[in-house]
């Protein structure tokens, strides 16, 4: 039962973060929202009994991919037109 509640909250958070990442004009917030989405998805992997995938998703999706985007935004511009 508790797993189903966690699943609802995590899936809703992932959807909200993904839609926000697409819709916002601020690219820095968009990158951070993508990081939040992949962190939440990694918790879902953990609940689905795939801890190997969860560790990889948390470190690559939430940390390294976000860093790549943040450095790229720092070299170009922050606001979408």
């Amino acid at each position, binding site marked *: 039962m508790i*797993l*189903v509640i966690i*699943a*609802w909250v995590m*899936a*809703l958070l*992932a*959807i909200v973060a*993904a*839609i926000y990442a*697409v819709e916002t004009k601020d690219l820095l917030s968009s990158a951070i929202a993508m990081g939040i989405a992949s962190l939440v998805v990694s918790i*879902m992997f953990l*609940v*689905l*009994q795939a*801890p*190997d995938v*969860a*560790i*990889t998703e948390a*470190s*690559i999706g939430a*940390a*390294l991919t976000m*860093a*790549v985007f943040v*450095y*790229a935004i*720092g*070299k170009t511009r922050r606001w979408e037109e």
Partner: protein
Amino acid sequence: MRRYAGIAVALLFFAFSISIFIQLIPYDSYEGSAYHYKNPINGSVANESVPSHYIKETRNETGAVNAVTAIVVEYRGFDTLGEVTVLFTAATGVSFLLYQLHKKMQRREANLITKEGSKIVLPFALLTGAYIFIHGHLTPGGGFPGGSVIASGFLLMLLAYPKFFVNEKRLSYIESISGSIFVIIGLLGLLLATSFLQNFIPVGKPGYLFSAGIIPLIYIAIGFKVGSELSSIVQKLKEVEE
């Protein structure tokens, strides 16, 4: 119109993941349908599917408690070699694309919390990464997650200190030496056993640190390789032209 289509796709994904959690789609009872597992070494055919063979026999055949690691390194070791090559090619491509003759580091100062917090977190990140890839055959994880955890520790230092810098030559030495160790272990399998990347060390007792033959050795090599590659990618991205 495209916006609504995207939202519809997102809601479909939501419904799909919820249906997995409330067991409309079972995910833990798959046993496969093709019941003719063929042993690659002696060629005998057994009346079971490949997934059920992996679930039942991994522990006896490879000595690894973590079946995922046994499949990635032992049964499908050649695929892992290809995966490592893909990552190597990507890191080389990034360093070619971002090559700068006169480079300098970004000079923006980080705030106090990032600076002091990274000093505390960095040793634990390195320790966690090393733990994940050394214990790859016992606990969840392995070379790729462990290496990326180490790289995220370096990323934290790169974010906190503007002048922090890892020697690129040293990184590339670590990377090439550990990649060579992987291939050499594979060739030793060809020499001492029957095929490339086959286990030639005694399997030992499952559950102990020194067990599972070549799996810990290969995963330590992969951990060092992935960690140095991802660190060099992140460092290359930090550099700006003068």
